[in-house]
C-alpha cells in the first residue's frame, strides 16, 4: 500500500481550454494520478525543463520533475499537440515519456500521423474515465524501465501480481478494451448510435423497482 502511494504517477496535461483542463485534471485525479496542467505546448516544454530551440546542439536541461505521461490536446494556437509530440520524441532526455493526443475531431489522417510520430494513444474528446484507465499500462512501462529492466524482457520478467494484471491490459490499439463502452476511434457514427441506444433505455425508468431503504 505504501509503495503504491510513493510511486504515484505524475501526468502533465496540456490544453488551451480552461474547461477541458479542469476536466482532464479531475479525470486523472480520479484515477489516482498527480496532475500538472498547462495551457500551451511551450509551457509544457518549459515545465519539463526542455528549452524550445531549433538548434540541435542546444543544451537540454535535466528533467526537472519526473513526468510519467504527457497528455495533450491536438488543436492549440501556436504549438499544436503534434508539434509538442515531435519535440518530445526528438529530445534525448524526454523521448521515453509516453505521449497521448486528444482531439475533438475524428480525422483518420491526423490520428495515424500522431501514432506514427510516436503517440501511444489518440483519444477522441470528450475523454471519459474509461479512456484514462488505458493510460496506466503506458505509465507502468516507464516505471519498469527506470527500475533497470530491459524493454524486451518486460513480458518475461517475473512480475508481482498487480503488475502482471497491468501487462495483460496492453492490447493493440485497434482492439476494443471495453465491452460495454465500445469507442472505436474511426467510426464516430457507431458511437453516436450507441449513445442514442443508451438514452433510449434511460427514457424508461423502472419506477416500480424503487425500494426505500429503511
Amino acid at each position: 500500500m505504501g509503495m503504491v502511494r510513493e510511486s504515484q504517477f505524475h501526468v502533465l496535461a496540456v490544453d488551451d481550454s480552461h474547461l477541458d483542463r479542469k476536466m482532464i485534471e479531475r479525470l486523472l485525479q480520479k484515477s489516482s494520478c498527480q496532475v500538472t496542467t498547462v495551457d500551451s505546448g511551450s509551457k509544457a516544454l518549459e515545465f519539463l525543463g526542455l528549452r524550445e530551440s531549433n538548434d540541435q546542439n542546444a543544451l537540454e536541461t535535466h528533467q526537472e520533475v519526473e513526468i510519467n505521461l504527457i497528455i495533450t490536446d491536438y488543436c492549440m494556437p501556436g504549438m499544436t499537440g503534434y508539434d509538442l509530440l515531435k519535440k518530445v520524441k526528438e529530445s534525448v532526455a524526454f523521448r521515453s515519456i509516453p505521449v497521448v493526443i486528444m482531439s475533438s475531431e475524428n480525422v483518420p489522417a491526423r490520428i495515424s500521423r500522431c501514432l506514427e510520430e510516436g503517440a501511444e494513444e489518440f483519444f477522441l474528446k470528450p475523454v471519459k474515465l474509461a479512456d484514462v484507465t488505458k493510460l496506466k499500462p503506458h505509465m507502468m512501462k516507464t516505471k519498469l524501465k527506470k527500475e533497470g529492466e530491459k524493454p524486451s524482457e518486460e513480458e518475461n520478467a517475473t512480475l508481482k501480481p498487480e503488475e502482471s494484471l497491468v501487462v495483460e491490459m496492453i492490447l493493440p490499439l485497434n482492439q476494443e478494451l471495453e465491452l460495454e463502452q465500445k469507442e472505436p476511434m474511426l467510426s464516430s457514427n457507431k458511437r453516436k448510435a450507441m449513445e442514442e441506444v443508451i438514452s433510449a433505455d434511460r427514457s424508461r425508468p423502472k419506477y416500480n423497482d424503487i425500494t426505500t431503504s429503511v
Partner: protein
Amino acid sequence: LMTAKSLASKETVNGRCWFYSDDDDGISVYLNRELHAMNTVVAQLQTQFQDYLVSLYQQGFLDNQFTELRKLQDEGTPDFVAEVVSLFFDDCSKLINSMSRSLERPENVDFKQVDSGVHQLKGSSSSVGARRVKNVCISFKECCDVQNREGCLRCLQQVDYEYKMLKTKLQDLFNLEKQIVQAGGAIPQHFPSYTILRPDIRPCLDA
C-alpha cells in the same frame, strides 16, 4: 400502538429541539416518527430530483457525457459539476458576444473568428453533455463553412437561447440537490436511481 404513557411531546427552546416523555419508549417512538418523517421528505425530494434529471435527458438537454461528468464528483469534490457547468456558461456568454461582434457588419464578417468560436463552443458543450447546444453548433459550423451570414445569425440566436435555457434547468437541478442535502439525504448517484439514505439518518420503524 402507542399508549398515553408512550406519547412524547416536542418543544423548541433556544433553537434546540427537546423531547419530553414519561419513559424511554416514548422518546424512541417519537424519534423514530421524526426520522421517518424526515426520511419521507428526503425520499420525496430524491424522487423529484430523479424525475427531473430523467426529464432533462428525455427532452434532449443532456446526453451521456453529463453522466460521465457526475461520475467525477465525489465527497471530496462536491461542487465539481456545478463548477464545470459554470465555466461552460461563462464560455458561452463570452463566445456568443465575440461572434456577435464578428457577424455585425454584413460587408465585413470575420468568418474565421466565428468558426473558431463555434469550434470552441462545440468542444465545451460536448465536454459537459449539453446536447442541444452542441447540436446547434453543428448547424452553426455548416453555415460558417459556406459563409452564410444570415444562417450564422440564426444559429447564434439559437445557441444563446439554448444555453440560457439549460442554465435555468441545471440551476433547478442543483437547487433540488441542495434541498436533499439540507433534509439530511444523499444525492442519488446512479442512473436510474433508488432511494439512498445517509447511514446516520437510517430510522428503525419497529413501532
